[in-house]
């Protein structure tokens, strides 16, 4: 890392650890996938809310990654069943 203090607007970095930007809950090392430490929910896109997401097609998922501490929604992903989570990580400080 090069001195920055966040992975995204919702996931900050404190002393090398990824933390929830809202409550500071520890989400593991910033150089590892923080989503492994988040609460994950996977729902059919049609159930995401509103009619616009109800496409009439099955098999499309919307993943939610929540902070286990305060329930803030940290990230979302469109996915199909079995596809791996998208990992965003910072490099080891040189």
């Amino acid at each position, binding site marked *: 890392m*090069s001195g920055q203090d966040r992975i995204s*607007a919702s996931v900050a970095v404190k002393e090398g650890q990824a933390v929830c930007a809202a409550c500071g809950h520890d989400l593991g090392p910033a150089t590892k996938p923080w989503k*492994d430490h988040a609460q994950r929910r996977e729902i059919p896109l049609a159930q995401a809310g509103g009619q*616009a997401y109800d496409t009439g097609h099955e098999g499309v998922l919307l993943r939610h990654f929540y902070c286990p501490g305060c329930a803030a929604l940290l990230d979302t*992903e*469109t996915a199909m069943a079995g596809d791996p989570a998208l990992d965003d990580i910072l*490099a080891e400080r040189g």
Partner: protein
Amino acid sequence: MDPMTFSIIRHRLFRIVDEAVITLKHVSGSAITNEGHDLMVSLYRADGTLLMGGVGFLHHLTSAAEACKSIIRRFEGDIHEGDIFLLNDPYTAALHTSDIYLVSPIHHEGRLVAWSACFVHVYDIGAVNPGGFAPQAPDIYTEGFSSPGIRLVAGGEMRQDVLDTILNMVRSPEMVTLDLRSMIACNNVARDRMQSLMTKYGAKEVDGACAELVNQSEDLFRARLRELPDGQWQSRQYLDVNGETARVNLTMTKKDDRLIFDFSGSDPQSPYSINCTKWASLGGLFAPLFPLLCYDITWNEGVLRPVEMIAPEGSIVNCTRPAPVSVATVGAIQSVNNAACSTIGKMLGASEKYRNQSTAVWHANHFAIFKFGRNQKGGDSIGILTETFAGAGGARSFADGVEIGGEIPNPISRMANVETVEAAFPVRYLFRRRAPDSGGPGEYRGGTGGELALVPHKAPDGGINYVISGKGSRHPMSEGLAGGYPGAPNSYVWVKAPEDGANTPVTAAGGLDAISGTQERVSWGVYPLMGRDALYVRWNGGGGHGDPIVRDPEAVRSDVAAGLVTLQSAGDIYGVALRDGAVDETETMAKRKSIRSARLQQEASE
């Protein structure tokens, strides 16, 4: 070089491109060019490297550089003043056959000193389907006329035999002629102005300024990269075509002053024409990179140097001949663009300095719908629904996305007036408006996309037909950021009129459900729009940014009042309760508390 002269030459190069674009539009007669701004003009150095990227579709800046280099290789020793070359082969440099490059060498005192290149999406290219996008093409051989390089103008004289041969292979040759002549005029203006610049300052001085400009861009871009955090960001796009789904996977790695875009793991090339070649993928990733990371840096070869692309051969992002590619610009290229936009947005969001430059994905899903048939004047018309260029802005870290806000890869994109379309085609719009719930929810909402419905009107043949290359009705493609939802997917519906002949009044307020008839989803192929049937299209909004349940409830109320968000979504997604048009603060707090509780009752992460 003294800084004043350098600055003057730099600005003159900008103005040359601007004037060439104006010329192109003045001569062109097609809506896709004049109304949609599906065009590009840029300047290149003597060796074909990018010197001054212009406006228009930015995917073309690097591909046209490769077109220049390819012409240099093919015609080595036989390139003369006043020549103009045509190139549209996707396996050589172009994005797809209907985006024709005209490449002009620029000479000064007998020496080749630069190139100008431009493109427009020509009216037709003779593919199996009218308009250039060919969802029914099984291979490149059925995607129309394709040249890896041919001399169209020799020493200032049109090669009539070549022109006639091309026009003999396309529909509406008079319109294609106009397209080609608009590009010739454009390149002629660029050449004349470049020659004037060199006459005034000297070819050596101008070339020195160009070299310095390229080095300056490289230095500035590398410096910016060093300011950004080192790390790795991922994105994934799904392209649904005819019931099949293809993936574009991207891992972007930033290390010091280098940026690597790795598309390993993307699906093999498709039997459908959504594939793209490696030159097209390169253009696709640079289209968002130029405006997002280099908004204050001149777009040229210097920006390309710190960037590496890995695109596995035989994949959907680096297909091999004869795979079909005619839908590439709205297919794999756009997905490459979206994935790059997403990863760049994430990287910017990780930077304290640049976090406010971060944006969720904009208008991620073009819908290429080409209407064709006999018009109300008895002539033949072919033309795209230019609403595909209307787009929607992705939300930013501090503000909502722009409604119907265009798109990142084309800073000047826009759509035609309804009246323009109705004057050229035997159709009437039932409505065209912002589509509720299309913008991705978030603390900052993605900009809304739109929706429209068309019916035949005064059509001598009872209606028209249309070619639709409509993916993205299954998977949302405008990804959100930091907890923001994706923009809603597209929707394409053929409303078949009731057989009893009854007509139901249609109002703008009623939308799709107010149109009488049976609804059938369409997405890929050729369909009729006849009699009293209607075609309904909804296009995607931008991705959202941040958790929707921390959005200012007043903003949600305002959205509902404006028809941008439905009451259902206000409650279900944003956790906002409205009563008599006002926010019920007590119920809103309770609703949001309930949503948070429900979130923590889910199963633990894997």
